[in-house]
């Protein structure tokens, strides 16, 4: 429960940072990166709790959208696939981050993905940095 509480605090901090940057015109998917990292650090029900809480806060319209569905389903998919590659966990996390943002960008803007390649790189870089901090705080090797 203490780990879940720690995860909750980290998620809220990421959301506050995401909203603060958005006010300044910089929109990063920090909460998405956090959820992907959580897929490697928490059990299924804990992850589902974080995912639904994030969707509850971020959902901006009263209907499902490709972006929100990706936000919700991709971290859960990562959870079920997290032991497939048997690489170092930070490398798997990085790969999952890149793949996750790729799926998110194609879900949100399928025709114009190549217009956003700089935002994509920025998202992956910011997500990797944040993930590193999350792993430093929460990761305990078994």
């Amino acid at each position, binding site marked *: 429960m203490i780990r879940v509480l720690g995860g909750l605090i980290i998620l809220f901090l990421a959301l*506050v940072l995401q909203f603060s940057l958005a006010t300044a015109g910089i929109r*990063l998917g920090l909460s998405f990166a956090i959820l992907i990292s959580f897929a490697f650090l928490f059990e299924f*029900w804990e992850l589902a709790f974080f995912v639904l809480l994030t969707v*509850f806060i971020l959902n901006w319209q009263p209907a499902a959208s490709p972006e929100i569905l990706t936000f919700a389903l991709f971290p859960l998919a990562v959870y079920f696939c997290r032991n497939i590659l048997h690489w170092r966990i930070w490398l798997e996390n990085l790969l999952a981050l890149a793949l996750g943002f790729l799926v998110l960008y194609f879900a949100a803007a399928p025709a114009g993905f190549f217009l*956003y390649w700089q935002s994509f790189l920025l998202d992956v870089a910011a997500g990797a940095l944040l993930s590193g901090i999350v792993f430093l705080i929460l990761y305990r090797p078994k």
Partner: protein
Amino acid sequence: MKKRGGQLLLIACITAFAALIFLKPQYGVALRMFLAGERAAATGTAPDLAAENEVLKSQLAELQAVAAQLPAAPSHYLRAMVYSRYPLNFKNEILVNVGSNNGIAAGDAVIFRGILVGAVEKVFPGSALVQTVFDDHFKIPVRVGPAGNDGLFVGGTSPRVASIAKTAKVSLGDIVYAAGEGTPYGLPMALVASTSTSPDGLFEEAGLRFAYDVNTLQTVLVAQ
């Protein structure tokens, strides 16, 4: 036993969130506004609060007197509050708290202080999604300056007016106003801040200056 109890608690929270997402999304919006820093101060001692309350009451009375003398929302426009904003960087959309129940339809113009800020894209019973002029896919025919030179407003992070004839005389500070079908003609949008030639050399283009910050819009008017 303890682990099972924790799991049951998580499942209960998950069920609650799922219900809230579908039944009461406005609580998510409120939580988001709280995290984004849009919250009222709630500190101070009781005497301080009483004094502050009195000051606020007198200010309210004063403003109510002023408001009574101001024109109401122009006819055929409905005042709406901005509920939430698209959180990622692919679109520039806002959700307002009027929808089909209020007679709003897709394509209705949305203005702020008399300036066109976007158009209704999708309508729900109690709310509507508005595509702002800063969305990459927002395009509308416009006219520029006193001569009414034709151009095409192209939205995005740095909106511009494209396809202006090279022979057109466009000056800094010229007004850009809407001239598209379905939008009230003549609605101001921005001022010309810079001019340049298009990449292919065939047209003039104009960089724009806006009189508002779309990230801080709290209330708008929607054309009916």
